[in-house]
C-alpha cells in the first residue's frame, strides 16, 4: 500500500511565490536600467552590477554567519541591489557602492530579521547614509551622453537645483543629470505599468504620491509638471513607496502612506535645504507604518459590535 501524505487543506497553491514577485520587479526595473546605460554609458551598468553582486554576496554571507536558511533564491537581494544602484550617481566610487550594499543588506535588512521584517527600505536608507557620509561624491553628477566625449564625471547641476526652467521633455525621457535609475520618467512609468498589470503593485499608491506632489507644488506656485518628472519621485513612488515590507499592507493604509510621502516630499523640496526630498519622505513614512497599521481599516463581514447587535 502507498504511504499517503496527510496535510490540512488547502492542497492547491498559486504559482506566484515570493521569487516570482521579485522577478517581476526586476523585469520592471529593466527599462530604467537601459535608460541609465544609454544616458550615462557603461559606468551605469558597472555600478549596478557591483551593487547587485555585493548585495547578493552580503545576503548569502550574513545568513551563513547567523546560521539561517539561505534566502538569495528569493531574488529580493537583487532587487535591493538594483534599487540602490538606481539611487547613486553614475560616477560614484565603486567601494562606496559596496559600502552602500553592506548597509542595505546587513544593517537595514538582515539585522532586523531579513525579508519582510525590515522596517525601513534598505536601498533608500543606504542612500541616505551615503549622502550624509560622502556629500561630495554623492552629488557629483555626470552629464547625459558625457561619456561619449571621453569625460566620465563632469560636475553638473541636477534639474532639481533649477527646476522651474528645466525642459519637461528632457525630464520625461531622462536626458538630464541625476542618479542612474531615476532620470527617465518614461522608462520608470513603463515598469510601473507592467507591475500594475501583473498586480504586483497597486497603481493607486504611486498615483496618490505623485498626485499629491503635483497638487501641493502647484498650490505653492512651483512648476508642478517639472516637479513630478524630476529627481527621484517616479522611482520612489513606483518602486519604493510600494515596497511590501515597509509600507502598510491594507489599501487604506497604503494611501495614507502615499499621501504622507507626497506632502513631506513637497515640504522638503520647496522649503528644505536639500533639493531632493523623496528618500527622506519615504524613510519617514516607513517609520510611521507601524502606527498606520494600528488604524482599524478592515471590517470583518458580520462582525458584531460590542454589546450585541450586528
Amino acid at each position, binding site marked *: 500500500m*502507498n504511504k*499517503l*501524505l496527510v496535510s490540512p487543506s488547502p492542497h492547491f497553491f498559486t504559482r506566484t511565490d515570493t521569487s516570482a514577485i521579485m522577478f517581476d520587479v526586476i523585469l520592471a526595473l529593466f527599462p530604467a536600467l537601459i535608460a541609465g546605460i544609454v544616458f550615462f554609458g557603461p559606468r551605469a551598468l558597472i555600478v549596478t552590477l557591483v551593487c547587485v553582486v555585493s548585495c547578493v554576496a552580503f545576503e548569502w554571507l550574513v545568513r551563513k554567519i547567523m546560521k539561517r536558511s539561505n534566502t538569495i533564491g528569493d531574488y529580493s537581494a537583487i532587487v535591493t541591489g538594483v534599487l540602490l544602484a538606481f539611487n547613486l550617481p553614475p560616477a560614484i566610487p565603486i567601494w562606496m557602492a559596496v559600502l552602500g550594499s553592506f548597509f542595505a543588506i546587513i544593517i537595514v535588512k538582515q539585522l532586523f530579521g531579513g525579508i519582510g521584517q525590515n522596517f525601513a527600505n534598505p536601498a533608500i536608507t543606504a542612500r541616505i547614509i551615503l549622502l550624509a557620509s560622502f556629500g561630495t561624491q554623492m552629488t557629483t553628477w555626470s552629464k547625459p551622453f558625457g561619456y561619449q566625449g571621453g569625460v566620465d564625471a563632469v560636475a553638473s547641476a541636477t534639474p532639481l537645483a533649477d527646476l522651474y526652467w528645466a525642459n519637461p521633455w528632457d525630464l520625461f525621457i531622462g536626458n538630464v543629470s541625476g542618479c542612474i535609475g531615476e532620470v527617465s520618467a518614461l522608462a520608470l512609468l513603463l515598469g510601473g505599468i507592467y507591475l500594475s498589470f501583473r498586480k504586483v503593485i497597486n497603481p493607486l499608491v504611486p498615483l496618490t504620491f505623485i498626485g499629491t506632489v503635483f497638487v501641493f507644488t502647484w498650490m505653492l506656485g512651483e512648476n508642478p509638471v517639472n516637479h513630478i518628472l524630476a529627481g527621484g519621485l517616479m522611482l520612489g513612488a513606483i518602486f519604493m513607496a510600494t515596497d511590501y515590507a515597509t509600507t502598510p499592507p491594507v489599501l487604506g493604509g497604503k494611501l495614507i502612506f502615499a499621501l504622507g510621502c507626497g506632502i513631506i516630499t513637497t515640504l522638503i523640496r520647496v522649503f528644505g535645504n536639500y533639493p531632493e526630498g523623496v528618500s527622506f519622505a519615504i524613510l519617514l513614512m516607513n517609520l510611521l507604518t507601524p502606527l498606520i497599521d494600528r488604524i482599524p481599516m478592515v471590517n*470583518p*463581514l458580520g*462582525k458584531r459590535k460590542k454589546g450585541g447587535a450586528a
Partner: protein
Amino acid sequence: MAIVKNKKFLNGAHVPHHKNTNDSQTLPLPVPERVTILMLQHMGAVCEPLVKKGDSVFVGQKIGESSEKMSVPVHASCSGTVQDIISYTTPQGISCPAVVIDTDKLQTMDPSIHKPEIQSKEEFIAALRESGLVGLGGAGFPTFMKLNYPHPEKIQQLVINAAECEPYITADYRECLESTENIVRGIQAIRKYFPVEVFIGVESNKPKAIEVLDQATRTLDRVTVVELKSLYPQGAEKSIVYATTGKVIPQGSLPADCGVLVMNISSVGFIGKYLEDGIPLINKRLTVDGDCVTHPANLLVPIGTSIQDVLDYCQVPQDYVKVLMGGPMMGIAVSDTALPVVKNNNALTVFSEKGAKLPPETACIRCGRCISICPIHLMPAKLEKAYDNRNTELLQELCVDLCINCGCCSYICPARRHLAQKNQLAKSLLKQRQVKERKTNE
C-alpha cells in the same frame, strides 16, 4: 423564472477549474464485496447500531439510530450479512461504531420501503429525518434540522447551492443535468410547507447547468437562477447567500436567523427523489479525479464502499501519494484508503508526488494578498501572529471565529505561510479559552 447575473460578490481566488469530468455521465459502481457503514456521517450525535453480527440486512434497511435530537439515522447501502460491528476513527478523529456488511450482490430491497405519505409540515420534516439526509455540500448538517427552525415564519428565501466552486468536482453539475426533474420536485415539495422565494446559484463556468435549470424552473413562480462569478469560494454558505440575496450572516448566527435556508442542489434533488420512491440516502455521486487519474469519472457509489474499491474501479495508477475526500481547496487528506465513503463525500481527488508536493514555507513579505482575497475581510497575516503569540484577546477582536476555512489565504500566499491552517488552530484555541473562562466564572 429568469437568469440573473449578479454584480455583488464576496472576494475570492481564481483557482484553476480542472472540470475534466463535466461530460462524464454518472456510472453506477458495481456492488463491492464488503461495505463499512459508519454510525457517524453527519454533524451531531453518533448513532447506535440496530443490527448485530450475523444478521442479514436489506438495501435501505435502517441500521443505525440515535435518540438525540441532532442526529439522523443510517441505512444499509447493500444487502448481505453483518460480518462484524467494529470501532472506527473518522478522518476528523472521532471514534464511532461501524457496521461491516458482507454483500450478497443481490441488492434485495427492504420490503418495508414505500413512498412516504406526507400530509403536514411535521410529517415532511419527520420524513426527511427518516431519509437520513444530511447537507450534501460537505458539512453534513442534518437537513431536517434546517427545516425544524423554531421560527419557520421568518424563513423567506431558499438558496440552492449549485456553485460547485472547488476544482475538479462535477458531482453537483451532473446532478443538475441528470436529475433536473427531481430538483424541481424537491423545490415544489419544500415550497408546499415553506412558501419561500428560491434562488439557485450556479457559477458562470457551467452554462449548460444554468440553461437546464432555467428551462426546468421557468414555469415556477419566484424561482431565479443566479449566475455567479467563477470565483472560489462562491459556493461557501456566506458567499452564496450574499451573492444571491445580498444578506450578510452575522457572527454566531445561522442563515435561518436572517430568513434564509441554504441547501445543496444534490440535497434538493434527493428530496425530490425520496418523496417518489422512499429509498433513503444510501448512494452518493462521487467525482474521481486528480492529476494522476487517467480515467476520471463520476460514479454512483454505495455508502460504505472503501476508497480503495473506488480507486481500483477507476484504474487509478499506483503512484499516488495523496488522496482527498473532497476537492483540493477544502478536502480532507486521508491516511488510509480503507476508509469508507460517507454521506457528505462528493469527490475523491488523487494526487501524484508532483501534485501533492507542499511548497516550503518562507518569511511573510507583508504583501497583503491574504487580506485582499479574504471573502470575510479578515486579516490572516495578523491572525497568524496573534495565534503564534497565543493572544486570544486579539484573535477575538480580529474575529477569527468568522473564518470559513475556504483556504484562499494559504492558496494566494507567495511565502506559502500556513494561514488557513493557523486560523483553524486559532478557532479551537479561542473556543478552549472561552470554555475555560466560563468554567472559572461559574
